[in-house]
C-alpha cells in the first residue's frame, strides 16, 4: 500500500472554511468484478458477465443526472466508478445514493462498482486549480483506461459523459476506450430502446429548463444541513415527517415525530404547518426540520369538512390551538414516482409565456402541481403520466419534474388500476423465464412427486397421523393443515398431540434464487378488486406447495405434546415433515360434522359403509378434540386481554363451471375460530423458538399499545350514548367494548369497534435486535411474542421465519448452519420493507375497491339512485361523517353548502336547503333557520343518496346527499330496515349479502351492456387477460371489504391486528 495525502477544504460546523488533510491509501489489488479478469482479482459476489459487446463507464455527471436511464435492465456491463458514486452521494443526498447502492446489490442488474480511487494506477490526484468536475471526469477516464488494460483489451470500454470538452479531449487518446456523450451512446448502442430515449429527452429538457429560472424568491432558503443538525440536537428545531392533510392540501400539514428524535418533551402532539409559505417546499412524506412559532401565532386544526376545493372562510371553524411551526429545512426528500394528469389544451395555452412548460396535477391530492417541460403536451392531453420530481428552487412556486412513462388516457379502467399500483409504489412484472425455470416441473399428466432422498431426511407422518385441512370452499392454495391424536399416557396422565403443518415453501424457494428475490421484492400477494398479483409463481402456490388432499407434500411442522386434561405443554417438536392430507375439508362441512349433522365427505364416498363409518367417527373425534383445545387456548388469551375485532367472511358456492350459484355469508362458525386459534398458537410458539435461538436477529411481529389520546373520539362517542369505555389496558378495552351494546341498534357496537380499531396502531414486523424485549408484546392478541409462520405462500415474512426456524433446528442438532443468517440490521431493513409493502398492498386494495364502487355508482342513473340508510358516527362543524352499512361506505355529509345555506328538515322528514346557521356541540349538531331547528345526533340513522363526483385529475369520489333524517325504509320487505332486523347476527349479514348478490346481478347486466357500448375497453380486457369487471373475485372482494370493514376500511390499520387466518381472501379462481 502506498500512502498519499489528500487535501480537502471543508466547512467547519461554525461555517468557517477549514483545510483538512486526509490520508489516502492506494493499493494494487482492487477487484475489478469482471468475469473476464485475467489477473485473478478477488472477485466475490456479483461479477459482470462476459457476453456483452462492451462495458460502459458513466462519468460523475451522467451518474448523477441520468441514473434513471442506467437503471434500465437492458443496459448491461455497467461499471460505476467510486468517483461517480461519491459525486452522487455529495450532490444528490442519501436517497439517490441508496438507490444506486441497491442497484449495485441487485443481482438481476448487470452492474458493478469499481473502487478506482483506491487503485494505485487508476487514481489521479487533483491538480492545483483544477475544477471539481474536470477532475472527476479525468478520474473516470483514467479508470476506464485502467479497466480496459486490466482486461487485456478483451472488451471495448465506453465512457459516457455529458461534457463535450471531455469527448473531444479524450476520445482519440486510447484505442479501445471510447468516449461518447449519453445521447450518442444511446443512439449507437440502444437504438431500439425507445423508452430510454424518451426518458433521456425528458430529463435533458428538465435540466436545460432549470438553468433559466426566474430570480424572484418565492420561499425562504433552507438552512444548511450542519445548522439543522446542530439545531435538532440543541432542541431548537424538531425533526419529523411531513403529512399533508388530504382534504386541505393547500394549507394544512402536520409534522409527526419519530418517537426517539423528539427532544422537546413538552411537544406530545404533532406540529401544524399552516400555509404554503410555512411549508417551504416540503412535499408530503419528506423528513423535515421545523421551528416552532411563538405561542401567539399558534392555530387550531380545522374541523370543518371541506367540499372539494372549497376555500376556507373565517376562523370560526378552528379547534384548540396546537403547536404550530414552519419548515426551516429538509433533511431527507422522500420523493417517489407520481402519477399526474396532463391538462387539456385550453389550459396549457393559458399558461402564458412558455408553452413548453406545463403544470400537471398529481393524482395524489397531497402533492403540489408539478411543472414539466415537454414537447408532447398536445399528444398527452388528458393522459396519465408517471413523473419524477427533480428539484424545487426557492424561486419557483412549483417543483420541477420530468415525465417517465405514459400510462394511458384518464378514466380508462386499465389506466386507473395502473395508477393505483404506481401511487402505492407497487411494481410488478410477470415472472421471468429464468424464474420459472427454477420451478419444479408439475403438470396434470405428470404430477410432481416427492424425492426419495428427501423422504429419508424428513419425519414421515403419512401413516401415523391423521392430517386434514380446513379452508374456505374451493381453496387452491392450502398452506396450513392440522392434526391431532392421543398419545400413550405419560407420568401425569393421558396426553394429546396437536400438530400444525405448514407448506414447506423454503424447500422450493432457496435463499438468493431469482424466485426468492422476486418474492422478496413483492413481499406479499397483492389483492386488488379485480385481480391478484401472486408472490410466488402459480406452480408453487397452487400445486407443489399447496397441501392438497390425498397427495404427498413436504411440510414444516410444529407439534405439541399436551396434557389431555390441563392442556399444559409438555414438549414441542419443530421440524420438516412429509405429510399426506387425508381430508380437504371446508368450514361449513367441518362445522356440520362437529354438530353431528349429515355431511358429505367426498374422500370417503368410495369406501364400504363400515369402513366409512369408522373413518368418519375417527375424523369427528379429531375435530372435537381440536375444538376443545382451541376453546381452551382462546380462553387463555382472553384472560390476557385479547381484543375481539369483528371479522366476517363471505363465501361463494360454485358449480362445475365455476359460476356463482349463491353467496353464503360465512356464518361465524366456531370452527373458524378453532383454525385461527391453532394458527395463532403455532405462530406464537415459533416466535418463542426463533427468539430464544436468535435473540438478536429473529423476525417477530408486534402490535404496540395505542396512544391514549387516540381514544378520545371513541370515548366521547360512547359517552354520548351513555357507555363508558375503559382504555387503560387491552383487557379493559375488550371488556368495556363487550358491554357497550345497544339492544335497539346492533350497529352501535360495530361502529364503536371500528373506532377502537381506528385508534390502534398497526401491527408491524421487526427484528428482535432492534427493539427492547418489553416492546415485543402483541396488544391485539395479548401475546408476549408473535410472528407470522402459517402462510408462506402469500407472505414473505413467513418465508423468512421458516428459514430462521430451519436454522434454529439445525443449530440444535449440532450442525453449523450452512450460511450465516441475516444480521439484525439486514433483518430490520427487511422488516421495514415488508411493512411498507403490506401497507401499500392494503392501501392499493382499498383504493381499487373505491374505484370499483365509483364505477358501480357512476353507471347508476342519478335520478333513480337509490337512497340508503346511514349512521352518523362523528360530528364536524359544518357536517357529519356517516357510515352506510349497506355498502360498507364511509363519507362526509354536508349540512351547509357553499352558499351558506343549511339543511332544514321539514315535518315529513324531507330536507330542504335554507339560509340559516349551524350549531355544533359534542354529541349533536343542529341547524337553525327561520322556520325551525333540526338536530342531528350521534348514531342517529338518516337516509342519504349516493352519487359520484367525477374528477379529472384525481380519483372519483362518492358524494352523499341528505334525503331525510329518518332511517331509510326500503319499499318492499319491511324487515329489511336495520332497525327492524333482529339483533346483530345472521339476519343482518344475510341481508347485506342479498344486497350484494342483487348488486352483482345488476352489475353483470350493466357489464353486458357496457361491453356492447364500449368495445375499446373489452379489447383491452382481452389484451391484459383481465377478467370482466364484476367477476367472482371482485364480488368476493367487495363483500369481504364490507364485512371486514373494521379491519381494512380504516385505512390506517395496515396489517390490522392479526386475526390469524380470518383475513384471508377466500377466492382463488379469479
Amino acid at each position, binding site marked *: *500500500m502506498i*500512502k498519499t*495525502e489528500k487535501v480537502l477544504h471543508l466547512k*467547519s460546523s461554525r461555517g*468557517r472554511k*477549514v*483545510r*483538512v*488533510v*486526509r*490520508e*489516502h*491509501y*492506494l*493499493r494494487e489489488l482492487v*477487484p475489478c468484478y469482471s468475469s473476464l479478469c485475467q489477473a485473478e482479482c478477488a472477485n466475490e459476489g456479483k461479477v459482470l458477465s462476459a457476453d456483452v459487446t462492451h462495458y460502459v463507464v458513466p462519468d460523475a455527471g451522467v451518474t448523477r443526472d441520468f441514473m434513471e436511464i442506467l437503471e434500465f435492465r437492458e443496459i448491461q456491463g455497467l461499471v460505476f466508478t467510486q468517483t461517480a458514486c461519491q459525486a452522487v*452521494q455529495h450532490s444528490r*443526498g*442519501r436517497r439517490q445514493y441508496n438507490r444506486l*447502492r441497491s442497484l*449495485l*446489490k441487485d443481482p438481476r442488474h448487470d452492474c458493478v*462498482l469499481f*473502487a478506482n*480511487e*483506491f487503485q494505485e494506477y487508476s487514481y489521479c490526484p487533483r491538480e492545483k486549480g483544477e475544477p471539481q468536475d474536470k477532475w472527476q471526469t479525468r478520474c473516470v477516464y483514467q479508470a476506464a483506461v485502467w479497466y480496459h488494460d486490466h482486461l487485456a483489451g478483451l472488451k471495448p470500454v465506453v465512457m459516457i459523459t455529458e461534457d463535450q470538452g471531455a469527448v473531444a479531449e479524450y476520445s482519440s487518446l486510447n484505442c479501445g476506450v471510447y468516449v461518447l456523450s449519453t445521447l450518442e451512446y444511446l443512439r449507437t448502442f440502444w437504438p431500439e430502446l425507445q423508452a430510454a430515449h424518451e426518458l433521456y429527452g425528458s430529463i435533458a429538457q428538465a435540466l436545460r429548463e432549470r438553468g433559466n429560472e426566474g430570480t424572484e424568491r418565492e420561499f425562504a432558503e433552507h438552512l444548511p*444541513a450542519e445548522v439543522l*443538525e446542530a439545531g435538532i440536537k440543541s432542541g431548537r428545531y424538531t425533526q419529523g415527517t411531513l403529512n399533508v392533510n388530504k382534504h386541505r392540501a393547500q394549507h394544512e400539514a402536520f409534522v409527526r415525530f419519530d418517537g426517539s428524535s423528539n427532544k422537546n418533551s413538552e411537544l406530545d402532539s404533532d406540529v401544524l404547518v399552516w400555509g404554503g409559505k410555512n411549508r417551504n417546499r416540503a412535499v408530503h412524506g419528506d423528513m423535515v426540520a421545523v421551528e416552532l412559532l411563538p405561542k401567539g401565532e399558534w392555530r387550531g386544526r380545522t374541523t370543518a369538512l371541506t367540499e372539494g376545493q372549497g376555500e376556507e372562510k373565517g376562523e370560526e371553524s378552528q379547534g384548540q390551538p396546537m403547536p404550530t411551526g414552519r419548515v426551516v429545512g429538509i433533511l431527507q426528500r422522500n420523493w417517489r414516482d407520481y402519477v399526474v394528469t396532463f391538462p387539456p389544451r385550453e389550459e396549457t395555452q393559458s399558461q402564458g409565456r412558455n408553452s413548453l412548460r406545463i403544470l400537471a396535477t398529481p393524482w395524489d391530492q397531497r402533492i403540489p402541481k408539478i411543472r414539466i417541460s415537454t414537447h408532447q403536451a398536445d399528444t398527452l392531453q388528458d393522459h396519465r403520466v408517471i413523473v419524477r420530481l427533480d428539484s424545487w428552487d426557492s424561486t419557483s412556486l412549483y417543483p420541477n419534474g420530468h415525465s417517465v412513462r405514459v400510462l394511458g388516457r384518464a378514466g380508462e379502467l386499465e389506466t386507473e388500476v395502473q395508477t393505483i399500483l404506481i401511487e402505492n409504489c407497487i411494481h410488478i412484472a410477470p415472472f421471468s423465464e429464468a424464474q420459472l425455470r427454477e420451478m419444479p416441473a408439475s403438470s396434470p399428466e405428470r404430477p410432481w412427486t416427492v424425492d426419495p432422498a428427501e423422504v429419508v431426511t424428513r419425519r414421515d407422518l403419512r401413516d401415523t397421523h391423521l392430517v386434514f385441512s380446513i379452508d374456505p370452499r374451493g381453496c387452491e392454495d392450502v398452506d396450513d393443515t392440522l392434526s391431532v391424536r392421543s398419545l400413550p399416557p405419560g407420568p401425569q396422565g393421558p396426553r394429546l398431540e396437536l400438530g400444525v403443518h405448514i407448506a414447506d415453501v423454503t424447500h422450493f424457494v432457496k435463499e438468493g434464487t431469482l424466485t426468492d428475490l422476486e418474492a422478496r421484492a413483492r413481499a406479499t400477494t397483492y389483492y386488488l378488486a379485480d385481480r391478484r398479483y401472486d408472490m410466488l409463481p402459480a406452480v408453487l402456490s397452487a400445486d407443489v406447495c399447496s397441501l392438497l388432499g390425498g397427495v404427498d407434500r413436504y411440510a414444516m411442522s410444529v407439534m405439541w405434546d399436551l396434557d389431555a386434561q390441563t392442556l399444559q405443554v409438555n414438549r414441542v417438536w419443530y421440524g420438516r415433515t412429509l405429510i399426506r392430507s387425508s381430508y380437504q375439508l371446508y368450514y361449513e362441512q367441518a362445522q356440520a360434522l362437529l354438530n353431528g349433522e349429515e355431511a358429505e365427505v367426498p374422500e370417503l364416498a368410495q369406501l364400504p359403509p363400515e369402513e366409512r363409518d369408522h373413518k368418519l367417527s375417527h375424523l369427528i373425534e379429531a375435530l372435537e378434540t381440536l375444538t376443545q383445545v382451541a376453546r381452551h387456548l382462546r380462553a387463555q388469551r382472553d384472560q390476557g386481554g385479547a381484543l375481539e375485532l369483528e371479522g366476517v367472511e363471505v363465501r361463494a358456492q360454485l358449480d362445475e363451471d365455476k359460476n356463482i350459484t349463491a353467496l353464503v355469508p360465512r356464518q361465524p362458525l366456531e370452527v373458524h375460530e378453532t383454525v385461527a386459534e391453532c394458527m395463532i398458537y403455532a405462530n406464537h410458539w415459533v416466535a418463542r423458538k426463533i427468539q430464544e435461538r436468535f435473540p*438478536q436477529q429473529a423476525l417477530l411481529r408486534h402490535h404496540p399499545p395505542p396512544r391514549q389520546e387516540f381514544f378520545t373520539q371513541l370515548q366521547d362517542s360512547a359517552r354520548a350514548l351513555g357507555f363508558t369505555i375503559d382504555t387503560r389496558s387491552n383487557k379493559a378495552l375488550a371488556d368495556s367494548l363487550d358491554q357497550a351494546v345497544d339492544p335497539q341498534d346492533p350497529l352501535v357496537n360495530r361502529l364503536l369497534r371500528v373506532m377502537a380499531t381506528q385508534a390502534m396502531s398497526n401491527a408491524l414486523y421487526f427484528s428482535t435486535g432492534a427493539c427492547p424485549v418489553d416492546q415485543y408484546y402483541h396488544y391485539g392478541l395479548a401475546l408476549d411474542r408473535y410472528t407470522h409462520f402459517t402462510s408462506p405462500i402469500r407472505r414473505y415474512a413467513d418465508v423468512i421465519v421458516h428459514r430462521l426456524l430451519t436454522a434454529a433446528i439445525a443449530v440444535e442438532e449440532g450442525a453449523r448452519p450452512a450460511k450465516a443468517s441475516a*444480521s*439484525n*440490521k439486514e433483518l430490520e431493513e427487511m422488516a421495514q420493507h415488508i411493512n411498507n409493502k403490506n401497507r401499500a398492498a392494503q392501501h392499493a386494495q382499498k383504493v381499487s375497491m373505491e374505484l370499483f364502487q365509483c364505477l358501480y355508482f357512476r353507471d347508476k342513473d342519478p335520478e333513480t339512485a337509490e337512497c340508503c340508510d346511514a349512521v352518523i358516527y362523528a360530528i364536524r362543524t359544518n357536517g357529519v361523517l356517516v357510515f352506510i352499512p349497506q355498502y360498507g361506505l364511509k363519507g362526509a355529509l354536508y349540512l351547509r353548502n357553499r352558499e351558506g345555506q343549511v339543511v332544514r328538515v321539514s315535518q315529513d322528514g324531507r330536507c330542504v336547503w335554507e339560509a340559516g346557521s349551524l350549531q355544533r356541540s359534542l354529541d349533536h349538531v343542529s341547524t337553525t333557520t327561520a322556520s325551525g331547528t333540526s338536530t342531528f345526533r350521534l348514531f342517529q340513522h338518516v337516509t342519504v343518496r349516493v352519487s359520484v363526483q367525477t374528477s379529472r385529475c384525481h380519483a372519483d369520489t362518492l358524494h352523499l346527499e341528505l334525503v331525510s333524517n329518518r332511517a331509510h325504509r326500503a319499499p318492499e320487505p319491511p324487515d329489511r330496515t336495520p332497525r327492524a332486523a333482529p339483533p346483530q347476527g345472521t339476519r343482518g349479514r344475510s341481508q347485506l349479502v342479498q344486497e350484494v348478490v342483487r348488486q352483482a346481478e345488476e352489475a353483470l347486466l350493466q357489464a353486458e351492456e357496457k361491453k356492447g357500448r364500449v368495445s375499446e375497453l373489452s379489447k383491452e380486457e382481452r389484451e391484459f387477460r383481465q377478467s370482466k369487471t364484476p367477476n367472482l373475485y371482485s364480488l368476493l372482494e367487495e363483500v369481504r371489504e364490507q364485512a371486514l370493514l373494521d379491519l381494512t376500511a380504516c385505512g390506517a390499520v395496515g396489517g390490522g391486528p392479526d386475526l390469524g387466518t380470518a383475513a384471508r381472501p377466500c377466492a382463488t379462481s379469479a
Partner: protein
Amino acid sequence: MAGVELLSDQGYRLDGRKATELRKVQARMGVFAQADGSAYIEQGNTKALAVVYGPHEVRMSRSKTLHDRAVINCQYSMATFSTAERKRRPHGDRKSTEMSLHLKQTFEAAVLTNLYPRSQIDIYVKILQSDGGNYSACVNAATLAVIDAGIPMRDYVCACTAGFVDETPLADLCHAEESGGGTSLALALLPRGGHIALLQMDARLHQDHLETLMEAAMTACKGVSKVLDQVVRQHLQEVSALTGE
C-alpha cells in the same frame, strides 16, 4: 451520524484501508540528545513526540516519594497547530489532564518501577499533528522513549484504537472515523503476555460485540508491536555501528 459512509459495501474505509488494516507507522528513536530518552512517531497523520527524563530523585514535593518504587510523572500536551483550527491552550485543559492520567496508569503497569525506589521518571508527550488515535500514538511514542532511556519494562506497551461500524470492527481509527459518532475503544497491551495495561471506551456498545471489538484491537496492538520492535532493533544497529562495536 452525518452522511459519511465509514465502511463501503466493498469493505473500504474512507481513506482506502480495509477494516483490519492499520495506518502507516513510522518512528525514530533518540531524536534529542539532551533528554535521557526520546522518540518520534507517525501513525498516519498523527504525529507525536515523547521525551523521558529519569530515573532521578523526586523533585516534586517530598511527600509524593514512594519508598518501594519509582513515581511516574506524565504530561500530555497538544501543539497549538496540531488541529485544523488553532488550539488556544496547549495543555492543562481537562482533556489533557485526563490523558496524562491515562498515560501514567499505562506506564505504571509496564515499567518495572520497583527497581528504582524513591525516584521519579518523567514522561513528556506532545502531539504535533492530530488525526485520531492520539492516545495510542502517545503510548507508542512513550514506549520507544522509555526504551531509549534504558529504563527496564515488562514488555513493549502498544496501543491502538478500534471502532465498530455495521457490525464490523475497524482497527486504528482516523479522525474522520472517530468523529463519525460510532464507538471507539482504546487499548494498551503488553503483547507478549497478552496483558491489558489500559482499556478505555466511552460510547455505548452492546455487550455481545465487546468481545469481537477487543479481539480486533488486540490484533491491531500486536501489529503495532511488530513495527515498534523493528524500529528498536534498527535503532540499536545504527547506534552500535556508530559506537563501533
